């Protein structure tokens, strides 16, 4: 019994120590952001790696999700004779929830894992150490541009997910199932509020972008400098990011829409 308590205490201390390290780390990263104003090309390169290269998976997934969502909703709504509100339902589902959350999960799998693996391998092959010995701070030079690129990319990718998802819903709902095109767009326009729905969705994606990129760069920088260490760090990035996205989604949804 005592042993079990001791082990639990040890595990809790390890988690707290790691959280402390992660907090100190992100404060150093944030302190390195002003330098990027002078060298924005470093961020642009990472925007391409982190953001542009994630577009394909986001667009394809969004199209599929929008089409399936439209299909499912159509048959449910038709039972109540309300299939005309399909556009509104698809748009609200995507803009409020599915866009930020699914884009976040895909972003963690595609860009987050890549960031962790890249930084972890740079550590394992002493590239970060050699940078330090060249009097270059790797947190400012390597981590800060990647962090900023991740934070900027995520809301754009989530917005893209929602837009393409709506298009997928339109193709199935209007093109395949015969919902009236005018009703699809006009009910969406009338019932999707810019501040309550779109802006809150964007806010969620900004929060997810910060959390996922923070986890990804920290896991890479904190990885054990071995093949196994980098592999475990990459796995942790995907798992922890997924949990964090889902947990924060619940909290943010409760805060944003709970009082209605």
């Amino acid at each position: 019994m005592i042993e079990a308590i001791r082990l639990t205490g040890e595990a809790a201390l390890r988690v707290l120590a790691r959280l402390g390290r992660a907090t100190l780390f992100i404060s150093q990263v944030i302190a390195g952001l002003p330098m990027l104003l002078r060298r924005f090309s470093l961020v642009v390169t990472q925007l391409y790696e982190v953001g542009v290269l994630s577009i394909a998976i986001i667009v394809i997934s969004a199209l599929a999700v929008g089409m399936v969502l439209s299909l499912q909703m159509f048959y449910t709504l038709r039972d109540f004779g309300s299939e005309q509100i399909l556009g509104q339902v698809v748009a609200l589902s995507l803009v409020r929830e599915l866009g930020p959350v699914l884009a976040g999960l895909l972003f963690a799998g595609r860009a987050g894992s890549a960031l962790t693996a890249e930084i972890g391998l740079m550590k394992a092959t002493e590239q970060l150490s050699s940078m330090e010995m060249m009097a270059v701070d790797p947190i400012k030079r390597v981590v800060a541009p990647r962090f900023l690129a991740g934070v900027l990319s995520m809301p754009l990718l989530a917005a893209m997910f929602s837009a393409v998802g709506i298009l997928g819903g339109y193709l199935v709902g209007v093109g395949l199932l015969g919902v009236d095109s005018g009703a699809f767009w006009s009910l969406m326009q009338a019932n999707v509020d810019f501040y309550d729905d779109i802006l809150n969705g964007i806010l969620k994606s900004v929060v997810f972008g910060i959390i996922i990129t923070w986890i990804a760069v920290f896991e890479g920088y904190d990885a054990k400098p071995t093949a196994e260490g980098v592999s475990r760090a990459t796995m942790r990035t995907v798992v922890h990011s997924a949990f964090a996205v889902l947990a924060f989604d619940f909290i943010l949804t409760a805060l944003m829409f709970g009082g209605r």
Partner: protein
Amino acid sequence: MSSDSILTIKNLQFSYGARIIADGMDIDIERGKITTIMGPSGTGKTTLLRMIGGQVRPHAGEVRYEGKNIPDLNKDALLAARKSMGLLFQASALFTGLSVFDNVAFPIREHTQLSEQMVSHLVLSKLEAVGLRGAAELMPGELSGGMARRVALARAIALDPRLMMYDEPFVGQDPITMSVITRLIKLLNDSLGMTSIIVSHDVHDAMAISDFVYLIAEGKVIASGTPEELRQSESPWARQFLRAEPDGPVSFQYPATDYQTDLFASVE
């Protein structure tokens, strides 16, 4: 401490848990000379270089570089001190996403405001010095181990450091590359007026170009002197190491319980 020391290590203490790396170590590096620090594998020679570069903090003692105690420096002062140091990593540590040219240009672009034309001149002159000007456009993945080591050397000397440190520069190299690297270390030290520290356990090549040698084991300097003085040393450590004798104070076996007990414990 010699009046012309660039680096003085005094009463250095450091350990990784129970493994002692430095236990009151004293080392003096004279300016303009090539000093080799030798010792058996696992004695912490690489850690010693990292303490000089401020990447590892000693538990006690001084690492005084050009008068400044490295462990006492704040981040900015440490970065400034590192600008005058170069370290050739054992694993070369080239940036895999950059070409050979960009690898060598990296420290120049980071620390100077020179025009691209001037950067190009500097990079090509450094690559010429290591015989790899023709490989400027190659990527690190396309280089052999010896070539990668020479590119890393060109990068390490890009800002003309006053102190150049080499971590096991001869490990894993074929005889031709080894002799080229040995010649380069000597040439760069003499022509650029640098001070060099070589960490190695390659007795023959390291001693051939060294002005002074420290032999370390169990966290202490156990012998030091010119290569000739060390060859004449009566220290059992020095004798065993320099003559590559299997028996002596340095044990081949990692500390373990009695062999027979280990073998027959399960039988009993």
